[in-house]
């Protein structure tokens, strides 16, 4: 996984660039990592036999987004924004380097794993780059807002 800071910045930029509800897009950008609940069981050395694996698949995320969106008045819009954020998450995770395997993008129809092994999750330059791009984008937006106010 890229770190959550990178995911959140990607979600924030996407939300701002598409003039969407940034709070929901950013929340959606971390949605697939609900799967990290698995780490609690790993720490307790309890084998969950892949029970939580579907949470980090597009199909599982779609269902979670659907459930969460029902907690909002405009459920349809909330669902779209949450999924928009989740998409940025999968896009970033797609480039992660591993010895083997990847993400089960077509689960439950296929167990085949997909990944383009380009970036190491330990590479902090990804986070630094995301922070720089986020900062440039923020100042660009601020400049545009000030221009409109004048």
């Amino acid at each position, binding site marked *: *996984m890229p*770190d*959550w*800071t*990178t*995911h*959140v910045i990607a979600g*924030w930029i996407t939300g701002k660039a598409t003039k969407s*509800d*940034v*709070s*929901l897009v*950013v*929340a959606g950008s*971390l949605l697939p990592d609900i799967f990290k609940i698995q780490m609690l069981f*790993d720490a307790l*050395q*309890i*084998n*969950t*036999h*892949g*029970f*939580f*694996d*579907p*949470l980090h*698949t597009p*199909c*599982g995320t779609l*269902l*979670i987004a*659907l*459930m969460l969106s*029902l*907690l*909002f*008045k405009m*459920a349809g819009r909330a669902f779209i924004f949450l999924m928009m954020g989740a998409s940025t998450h999968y896009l970033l995770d797609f480039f992660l*380097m*591993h*010895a*083997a*395997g990847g993400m*089960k993008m077509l*689960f*439950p129809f296929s*167990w085949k794993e997909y990944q383009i092994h380009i970036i*190491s*999750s*330990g*590479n*902090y330059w990804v*986070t630094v780059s995301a922070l720089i791009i986020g900062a440039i984008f923020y100042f660009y937006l601020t400049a545009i807002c000030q221009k409109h106010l004048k």
Partner: protein
Amino acid sequence: MRRIVAVISVVALLSLMTYSYIEHDKKDPDMDYILTNPEKFEGKEIDFCGRAEEIEPSFIKLRLMEAPYTCINVTGVHSGIKKGDVVEVLGTLKGVDEVKAEKVFVIKKLEYSLIFIRSLPAIPFVLYLFFKKWRFNFKKFMFEEVENA
């Protein structure tokens, strides 16, 4: 309508998770299953992740980061791995506790810890962004927009 959709999505998600739990060993066996049934995987390609515990000239001993959390000796690994590093291995199983590595991916101990440290600032940021705009109404059991957000 909302309740029907909620029930359907909860049932669908639990079904997916149960399906994954049941079929996991057949379709995507974990190390617990592989090491319990080594005869099925002897000479076959497997992949796993572990933390380096001992570094010897001819092999490294990895503590599995998944069940059964035991140690596996990995041969055919290039030097440069240090104790505590997280190592992903794609290799061939030879017996119950030995793997001949074909491909290895190493994340240094410090780099691995930094992933979690770098993730921490994201949590308050997300909570701030979210609760700046939304507040939960327990009576309606729904999020409502905060006025003047």
